[in-house]
């Protein structure tokens, strides 16, 4: 039986794509990181499949990544952030991340791959905003490592060179509460589209409050 742990990444992208397509999904369904209910509706397995790369893109991608990471974090997984030096920790806490298991790595741009690879060794969830010029080879190496270590990598931002099993893209976003010279930023309503390979071939759309007026994520 082909098992994802036995899968050796090939340097040939086509072979790799093929291998990913034949990977059994039923077996991997047993190793899911739990997510918050509004996020679960977006994921084909209802949770984050270990060993995969998920991309969060579009306006508000950092917030979306935090909301996705909140579930595993609340359930006891460590979460490491690379390339998000200025992450709003208060916002992260608001979405539900456990600050006791959050680590923010301030790596030089050239060191993102090292930082992410070491984190993947020991941490379930790595939120990564790679530099724009990140080499596709380094991205593939990291993806293979995540697969090998049963970790999940959440890539923040459009990074076409990054192989991702699933993309969660904010299509539309609209802030509420702020007017011309009055009010305040209160909540943001977004449409998130999930596109992926395999079980997620059909795009799934979900309306979310990201954040709600109290800084959480909720289905709209």
């Amino acid at each position, binding site marked *: 039986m082909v098992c994802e742990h036995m899968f050796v990444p090939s340097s040939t992208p086509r072979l790799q794509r093929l291998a990913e397509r034949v990977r059994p999904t039923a077996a991997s369904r047993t190793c899911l990181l739990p997510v918050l209910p509004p996020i679960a509706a977006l994921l084909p397995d209802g949770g984050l499949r270990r060993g995969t790369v998920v991309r969060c893109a579009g306006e508000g991608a950092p917030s979306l990544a935090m909301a996705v990471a909140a579930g595993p974090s609340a359930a006891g997984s460590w979460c490491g952030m690379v390339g998000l030096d*200025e992450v709003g920790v*208060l916002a992260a806490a608001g979405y539900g991340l456990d600050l*006791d298991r959050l680590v923010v*790595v301030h790596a030089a741009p050239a060191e993102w791959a090292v930082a992410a690879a070491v984190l993947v060794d020991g941490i379930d969830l790595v939120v990564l905003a790679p530099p724009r010029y990140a080499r596709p080879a380094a991205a593939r190496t990291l993806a293979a490592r995540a697969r090998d270590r049963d970790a999940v990598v959440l890539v923040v931002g459009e990074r076409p060179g990054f192989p991702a099993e699933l993309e969660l893209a904010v299509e539309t976003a609209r802030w509420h509460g702020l007017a011309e010279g009055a009010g*305040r930023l209160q909540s943001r309503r977004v449409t998130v589209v999930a596109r992926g390979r395999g079980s997620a071939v059909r795009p799934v759309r979900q309306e979310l409050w990201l954040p709600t007026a*109290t*800084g959480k994520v909720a289905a709209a």
Partner: protein
Amino acid sequence: MTTGGVTTGGVTTGGVTTGGVTRPPDPALPRLLLVECPGLEAPDEDDGGEHLRRFGRVVEALSSVCPWVDAVRPGVCTLPIKGPTRYFGTEEAVVAQVAETVAAALDLNGGVPDGDVRLGVAEGVFAAVLAAGTGMVVPAGETGRFLAPWPVDVLGDPELAGVLVRLGLSTLGRFAAVPAADVLARFGASGVRGHRIARGLDGELPGYRVAGMGARVVAALGRALALQDRQPEFWGGASAADERAGEALTALQRRLGTEAVLVPVLEGGRGPADRCRLVPWSPTAAAPEQKTKAQRRKAPKAPSEPPWPGRLPPPAPAQVTAGHRLIEVELVDAAGVPVVVTARGLLTEEPARLSVGGGPWTPVAAWSAPWPVEERWWSRARRRAARLQVLTTDGAARLLVTERGRWRIEAAYD
């Protein structure tokens, strides 16, 4: 060097300062009644889960004594003894009740006897396992004295034990007397873990607990149980996840430097950047398992009502820029006149366009009234500052701060 009977178990120390961060004192470890069924410890692969099912029945029966049964690993579970003691009167009565319950649960399933059942009471899982080995109820607060004479082999690291014995630190009590500051350098990470156990600061060794036991027991029984997978922090033990993470973070600090691997500390402050500080991770300071549930509840988790100047309200921005890296912006009205906040905290003009760092102009869609920065700070610094939320038509929402007519981006609501 002190000999034998050093009492450290359950002792709380004063605030510990690590890397400039003062932590609250370590809480006392929970007092546990540990039930060990040696006959049910066999790996469940061998018998199609039968051992696990039998263990599940024990756990299920025990949940009638106490709803907080914690399945630690196959054949081993604990329950906090404090609550049931209030109900049954004495700890001895609880132990007797539990012994009876376990025996009944195993007898009910007839056939092969599951061997003896061991019970022990002490503070923390580690001490309770040792207590169960000899069927002891360690008196409350005496766990440190109970642990002290045990040989360091019980820490389960033969290499560490060898080193300790060669140095004459052959018992947990002697090891506990070594100053904590010396332990990491001399005995490494495993030494720190063992030392914390010996001092009664940690309740269990990483790796002892088998993750997800509660769920596995439920699955084996095929029915719901009034049982939750206990988070290890309730019991003063490091989970396997924390252990693995600690190793990765230590490795990363070796690669990138101590200052590159940071963990958040929440504190009061004026602006978003002041409210949360990132401090270098340290193997001892960043041990989430040390916090009790009560402490967690007190921790300022959600940014509900931040004590910012002018009470900048939630939701908190997703990106917060550190003081020295604030990016300058230009904010002008429709005629191109720079927008300024007056002494009375009002805008001179209506913002119409925004340019970030000298870049292209983006039309402003909405903006807040300015929040003046705390008055006392103003007068002391002899300057006037205010914050303003600005939403541009490209959907970007930002928190700007203005001082002496300059506007800068303090945070972004990405």
